[in-house]
């Protein structure tokens, strides 16, 4: 089925996180753009047995160019005190990969009977009065909007297009990190789309995704019933739908993925929404580097202290040196105390909640 992609692709899997991708043949051994902990391994045996190998019908194109993505990376890396050595624009940029995440869209005909309470706004007149001995009464009329709730029932025979249903178990987490995508700009899949990018294969069947689509459908139907009743509000919408003619479409969503290694050499992903440019990643100061700097400062203080001590001993013979020794001692103490500053800065920065840019 891979030939349907109309370009040279293979299926590759990450031995660490088990994510499965369709990748251009020449990228089959890239670092996994999800966990960044291992390199991908091409799947050779029984490839055709894997589910959902067919190419997507729709692709939401990258509207954030590589240049813009680079700029966002620079902003991400900027302003972190004692940033981990690996967290710098150059390394982040060099590791950027284009990645597509899959999502199901479902179209369906719905027949249902429904019931709800619909609310109509209306205005009531009330009054406010002020009185003072000098000026007497001053009356002010005020209007207040209230809602009149009424029962409605009805029948519905509608077609709903492009109801979103997750194709990945991690869909909700991904959406939280990357923000929403505008789906109306999606275009039919073209062979060139995968020339420089990887595409994650769905791990959720449409049947499983349907459970997530149904509430969305119900909300859409409720909103339409509100409009049908010419009401301003709706509540307690209930229905008994029958779905027919369901049609599933696979859609790909673009993002840039890169990573840096933290103090423990663990990869930390940095993701950029390929449509909105929103950045997700953990910005943290490196405690190791902060401690390192602190240690250097303490060492300088120790040297200073030793010199002052020498000056002090010499001062027994030549009293003016005693003064130099005293000043040196105080200076050493000050510098030594200053050693706490880097650690404090790093701690303070890391205390802030994880930022998304």
């Amino acid at each position: 089925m891979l030939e349907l992609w109309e370009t040279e692709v293979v299926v590759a899997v990450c031995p660490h996180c088990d994510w499965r991708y369709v990748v251009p043949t020449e990228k089959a051994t890239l670092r996994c753009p999800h966990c960044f902990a291992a390199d991908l391994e091409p799947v050779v045996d029984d490839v055709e047995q894997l589910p959902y190998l067919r190419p997507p019908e729709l692709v939401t194109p990258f509207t954030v160019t590589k240049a813009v993505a680079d700029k966002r990376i620079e902003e991400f890396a900027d302003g972190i005190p004692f940033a981990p050595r690996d967290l710098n624009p150059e390394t982040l940029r060099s590791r950027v990969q284009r990645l597509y995440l899959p999502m199901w869209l479902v179209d369906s005909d719905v027949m249902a009977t429904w019931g709800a309470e619909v609310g109509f706004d209306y205005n009531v007149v009330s009054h406010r009065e002020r009185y003072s001995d000098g000026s007497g009464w001053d009356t002010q009329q005020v209007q207040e909007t209230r809602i009149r709730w009424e029962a409605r029932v009805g029948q519905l025979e509608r077609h709903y297009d492009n109801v979103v249903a997750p194709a990945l178990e991690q869909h909700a987490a991904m959406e939280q990190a990357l923000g929403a995508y505008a789906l109306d700009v999606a275009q039919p899949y073209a062979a060139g789309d995968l020339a420089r990018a990887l595409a994650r294969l769905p791990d959720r069947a449409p049947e499983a995704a349907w459970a997530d689509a149904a509430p969305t459908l119900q909300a859409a139907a409720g909103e339409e019933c509100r409009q049908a009743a010419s009401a301003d509000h709706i509540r307690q919408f209930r229905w008994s739908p029958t779905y027919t003619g369901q049609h599933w479409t696979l859609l790909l969503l673009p993002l840039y993925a890169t990573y840096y290694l933290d103090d423990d050499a663990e990869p930390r992903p940095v993701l950029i929404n390929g449509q909105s440019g929103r950045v997700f990643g953990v910005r943290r100061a490196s405690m190791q580097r902060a401690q390192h700097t602190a240690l250097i400062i303490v060492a300088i203080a120790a040297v200073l202290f030793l010199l002052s001590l020498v000056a002090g001993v010499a001062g027994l013979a030549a009293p003016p040196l005693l003064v130099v020794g005293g000043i040196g001692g105080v200076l050493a103490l000050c510098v030594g105390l200053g050693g706490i500053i880097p650690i404090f800065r790093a701690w303070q920065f890391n205390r802030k909640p994880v930022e998304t840019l």
Partner: protein
Amino acid sequence: MTQPFPPPGFIRVESAIPGIVVYAPAPEEDEAQPAIVEFKCPQCQATTAYSVVDGGLRCAHCGYYEPPARAIVGKGAQGFEFTVETLSIASQAHGWGETRQELQCQNCNARATLPPGRLTHTCPFCGSNRVLQQAAPQDALRPRFLIPFKIEANACRPIAENWLSSSWMTPKSLKQSTVAGFMGIYLPYWTFDTVTLAEWKAEVGHQETRRRYNSATKSWESHTVTVWRWESGRVRKFFDDLLVSGTAKLSRVLLTQLQNYDTHALVAYEPQYLAGFLAQAYDVPLEKAWEEGREAMRAATRKACRDQASTSQIRNFSMALDFSEESWRYVLAPLYLAVYRYNGQPYQVMINGQTGAIAGQRPVDWNKVWLAVGASVAPGALLSLIGLLGIVLGALLPPTLAVGMVLLALGVVLLIAGGVIAFNIINKARRMGDA
């Protein structure tokens, strides 16, 4: 779904979206309201009328009785909100017809012209009763509730005669005159329910005694001073069924004297209750009545605020007041009207058809009044004169000078007291005459 669709009582309404069908509860249709309700005895075809004693329709001819179809709702009677829509409709139209109505008696074919706002008609030729029910501009604006008559028409005469002889200011011969022809009429009233929330502040005066050393007399003197302190407070006042008359056709002064209707007796409107009585629709629109009601409520709330102050000496009083939970009702309340003549002059009497409270105009015997005025002023005047005389005589007979001065002082005090009494008497007499 096992239930039938649509559920009973729902009708199809317009839908703004193709493919969606909408059903709404059918609007509550009050039993089809015929434009004119006739009251005929099903047994003997004679005219029936509402019987105050029985609380239902009674045929005077054969005794047939029909109880009212609806129960007492009392204070639970539905109130309506002050919606912008209702206010604008209520300000334009009157409750049930504002033009004269032409009517032909179905019984004897006599023609009649009714004044605007009249809700009932009793044919003067054959005595048949009718209740007219034209369409109101909004359902809430037709009379929805009423207080039925509790006092019988023939109980009015003793009440009125008792009242005529109850004041010494009226002429003696008035006791002989009779008040007859009491006419039962349902008058329009607006009732208002509201909560007022007020916050007030004011300077409140307190009397304090201070001692001061007077260096001239070399002694301590005490004197009182008023000390002003700021006070503030909150008042939450609930107004339940404040009544405001819906007609300007009758004297406000008299109406307010007998407005002690008890709204616990409210019943849902039924044409039966009106059979045989006059009934009048409102001519004071809701908004105007509401304004009047609000003025009364804010005045009462202001008084409640001032009563909270620790003394009654108050200055720089100010308050802010919010009306909330406002609702209104349009009700009919029973009243008996009669006119009696005395010395060829007509005088109006009104009796509350529920409580029997009476108010009206009474002729004043001004001779009696002036006599009473004279009697109250005389002692003071006389004493003052004697006192003056004593002072004058003091020139010849010195001891009378002191007596004269004492008597004069006493006389002046009595004169002032008598004047106050006389003023009150004259005021009361005037109110009685031209109310």
